[in-house]
């Protein structure tokens, strides 16, 4: 590269001097002298502006450049413009030229990043509208799926040979039998807590013995079935969503359809039937465990013997038990339906499986508690 006689450096304030300097050639063209290490590690110190206009730079002097990597090269391209850098690099020795030309060419080809979207004053309103319409669309989907499952369930019950027995029994084991320890333990503990509460409050009025009634009524009517439902929403709705979602990601559900099989019949009906069978049993277990927890506390705190406890429980009208058990099939159906639907809503990626699984649990618990509250109101009005 033909170096002309350098004259006095053009002024450039600050530490920019460490990295570059501009010299005038005899013919008036500017020579950009690069110094030091233009590397990733010093990215923050690299100059952000040229002391002269980029178009006036006629040559690069890299004799004092100690290191250059693609970060340094791209900063240089930002300073000079990609095309200008390409033109200037042509006069450099081969080992630097390859890098500079490659970076300049790639920056020229890559285009520019999109401009940030302007701030929209109505954005929160738009977001609210989107959320609402998405919620409504989801509700419609849920009702549609409910209809579809009911029809398939009806067909399965009318033609029992089409019910997949192995799959159903497998789901019964996974959702029912394997949930027995956790349902029993938690119901026992909640039963004990209710009894403690009752003992604390009622003993003040000398009505400590009514603790037994408190535990019996609450567990037979509400807590037994509700606790079992909340546990199954967390345990089973999530696993249904994750199982079906993974199958969706794997294209297994598409494969089923192309094999002429109905995914609802093959995958959903066994799960729904399994829950309809095992959930009432689990609810019964939860009631019994809750009463046992209450009995334990009654024995310790109130000195009520288990026999006496049972005698009082026997006096509770049996309709309370039926009110509780009557809700079990409804809850079972809700949990299975939401778990399966969320599984089918999975799209493409693994992260979508996680999102839908979370959504399945939240929705299942929401609907279970909502239905329970409605049922409580209804039964109260009916005088049951």
């Amino acid at each position: 590269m033909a170096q002309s006689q350098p004259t006095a450096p053009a002024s450039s304030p600050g530490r920019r001097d460490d990295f570059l300097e501009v010299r005038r050639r005899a013919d008036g063209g500017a020579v950009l002298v690069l110094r030091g290490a233009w590397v990733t590690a010093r990215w923050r110190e690299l100059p952000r502006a040229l002391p002269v206009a980029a178009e006036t730079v006629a040559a690069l002097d890299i004799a004092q450049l100690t290191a250059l990597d693609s970060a340094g090269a791209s900063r240089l391209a930002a300073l000079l413009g990609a095309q200008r850098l390409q033109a200037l690099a042509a006069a450099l020795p081969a080992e630097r030229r390859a890098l500079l030309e490659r970076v300049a060419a790639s920056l020229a080809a890559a285009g520019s990043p999109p401009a940030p979207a302007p701030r929209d004053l109505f954005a929160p309103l738009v977001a609210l509208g989107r959320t609402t319409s998405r919620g409504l669309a989801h509700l419609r989907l849920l009702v549609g799926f409910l209809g579809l499952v009911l029809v398939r369930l009806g067909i399965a019950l009318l033609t029992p040979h089409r019910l997949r027995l192995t799959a159903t029994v497998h789901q019964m084991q996974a959702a029912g039998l394997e949930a027995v320890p956790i349902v029993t333990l938690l119901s026992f503990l909640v039963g004990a807590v209710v009894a403690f509460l009752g003992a604390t409050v009622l003993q003040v009025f000398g009505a400590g013995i009514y603790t037994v009634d408190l535990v019996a009524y609450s567990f037979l009517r509400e807590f037994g079935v509700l606790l079992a439902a909340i546990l199954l929403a967390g345990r089973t709705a999530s696993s249904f969503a994750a199982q079906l979602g993974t199958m969706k990601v794997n294209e297994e559900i598409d494969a089923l359809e192309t094999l002429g099989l109905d995914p609802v019949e093959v995958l959903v009906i066994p799960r729904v039937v399994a829950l309809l069978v095992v959930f009432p049993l689990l609810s019964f277990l939860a009631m019994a465990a809750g009463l046992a927890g209450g009995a334990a506390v009654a024995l310790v705190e109130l000195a009520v013997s288990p026999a006496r406890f049972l005698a009082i429980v026997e006096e509770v009208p049996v309709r309370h038990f039926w009110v509780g058990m009557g809700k079990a099939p409804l809850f079972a159906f809700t949990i299975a339906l939401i778990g399966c639907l969320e599984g089918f809503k999975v799209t493409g990626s693994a992260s979508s499986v996680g999102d839908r699984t979370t959504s399945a649990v939240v929705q299942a618990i929401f609907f279970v508690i909502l239905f329970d509250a409605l049922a409580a109101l209804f039964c109260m009005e009916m005088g049951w």
Partner: protein
Amino acid sequence: MSEAVIQVQGLTTRFGATVVHRGLDLEVRRGEILGVVGGSGTGKSVLLRACIGLVRPVAGEVRLFGERLDGPAGDALRRRFGVLFQNGALFSSLTVAENVAFPLVEHLGLPRPEALELARARLALAGFPLEAAERYPKALSGGMVKRAALARALALEPELLFLDEPTAGLDPITAGAFDRLVVTLRDALGLTVFLVTHDLDTLYAACDRVAVLARGRVLVADTLARVRDTDDPWIREYFHGPRGRAAAAAQR
């Protein structure tokens, strides 16, 4: 020839009762692109994972730049190589630009705006169209994912690049462009590349040397012409089968 960047000596790896490598030796020299091929289940990807320290060998050792990854220099060593995983392994919760900026923020302590600026330069270098830099990985095509992942592998300006099946799942045109990109980047940045592949075209278009894995060992590691003429049934089948002949013909 020049120094060895990767030295694998007597490497034995095992998963349960399955032995993947039995005393495998391999050397990768500075500035070369080494293609590793072999049938399914011969441990190509496991070899790559052993090199980058994700699989612990039962016996033998791997040295990068003469140092062991599990030694005291391990952490410094990790910044000197970049890895392109088979499916890109882009962080799904970050945009493409943030994915590339992530190691810059974590390791160089750059503030976010500057890291993003440098990330865009890296993306451009990997041939990623910048107008898509604010997208999330799930909105990218297969070729774009590979380029974005390559940009992230290049983020810390590594000297050594590991590519696991870089062209798998790409259409032939995109795959060919990616092969050329790897070569240009090697020439421009002076990289050493360890490339695991199934793609015969990649071997012809990009690799300086080819290592063939079989029966837990490196059967042969040499230039493509010499590897092709090695007398081994698998190599004959691989290079002289219909696909091998087509790839060779395409290069002439």
